[in-house]
């Protein structure tokens, strides 16, 4: 693009391109290229479901990215009042 065009036209495509590049590089990192969070979710679900009834939507995995440290937050919602044994498992 010539300097003239750059100065006198207010085009939107370059902005779209830039926003997408930033957004997608972030999303791909969070997702880990091959859906890290989704895989974590599935693995956690499989382990929990072995012991207590638990459904796909009841596992929430969040990754909060920070500079000194990141927090991986895992929340598993268990249906009903499941008496989880406090000491030893069967």
């Amino acid at each position, binding site marked *: 693009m010539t300097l003239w065009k750059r100065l006198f*036209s207010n*085009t*939107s*495509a370059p902005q*779209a391109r830039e926003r*997408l590049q930033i*957004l997608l590089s972030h999303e791909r990192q969070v*997702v880990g290229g091959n*859906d890290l969070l*989704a895989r974590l979710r599935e693995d956690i679900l499989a382990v929990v479901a072995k012991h207590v009834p638990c459904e796909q939507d009841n596992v929430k995995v969040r990754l909060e990215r920070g500079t000194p440290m990141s927090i991986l937050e895992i929340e598993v919602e268990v249906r009903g009042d499941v008496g989880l044994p406090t000491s030893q498992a069967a």
Partner: protein
Amino acid sequence: MAKIITVTSGKGGVGKTTTTAAIGAALARTGDKVVVVDFDVGLRNLDLIMGAERRVVYDFVNVIQGDARLPQALIKDKRLDSLFLLPASQTRDKDALTEEGVDRVIGMLSQHFDWVICDSPAGIERGATLAMRHAEIAIVVTNPEVSSVRDSDRIVGILDAKTLKAERGETVDKRLLLTRYDHVRAARGDMLKTEDVLEILSLPLLGIVPESGDVLKASNMGVPVSIHDPNSAPARAYHDAALRLKGENIAMEMPRQRGGLFSKLLRRAA
């Protein structure tokens, strides 16, 4: 054995159904036996785009549930002898398609056709993952628009994780089809350019379908755009894309500014 193609996108309204019908018809025109399968249970539309909406008696769900045999549900195209449609059901039950049922039907279809083209519903839910499950080739339909590109990127991730090929440790062959491309606006800098989208998504390009009134006209008439007016720009783009799917080496015709200032003025006035 058929080649199984899934037409997918993430975002709705980008032209998946139009593309399924157009590529299906273009492949059938070369003499191949083609079946297009509508996976959009609840919101079917492929029958309408193909002009077969009044000929649907049995559908995909009827076949899966054993209420009809597959040949009863297949609708032969009025114009092309080697083109068939398996319509979706309008049932509200989204779980009417089962994994085993889909496996069985796709298995039967792939024995009798050269190409099985699956029209995926929008989104990343069950219907979409069922539609891509058997895909060998995925056509990712994208508009040169931010939300469409973003959702395509998401779909690429899912194609790499949730298909039978992915489960076997292989990768689905993914191709980008850019639709509703307006070369005038792209040249003006008001629309993402082909190169931009290709760079961002890094997928091989299957074709560029220009924004054109011919697409709406063809869908109004219920004729796949690739055979409605075979000389129209979108028809040529879809025809070339179909030949590329067949492995032919067709040069990519970049829609570019034709003519000079005069045609530019005419376009603006239009």
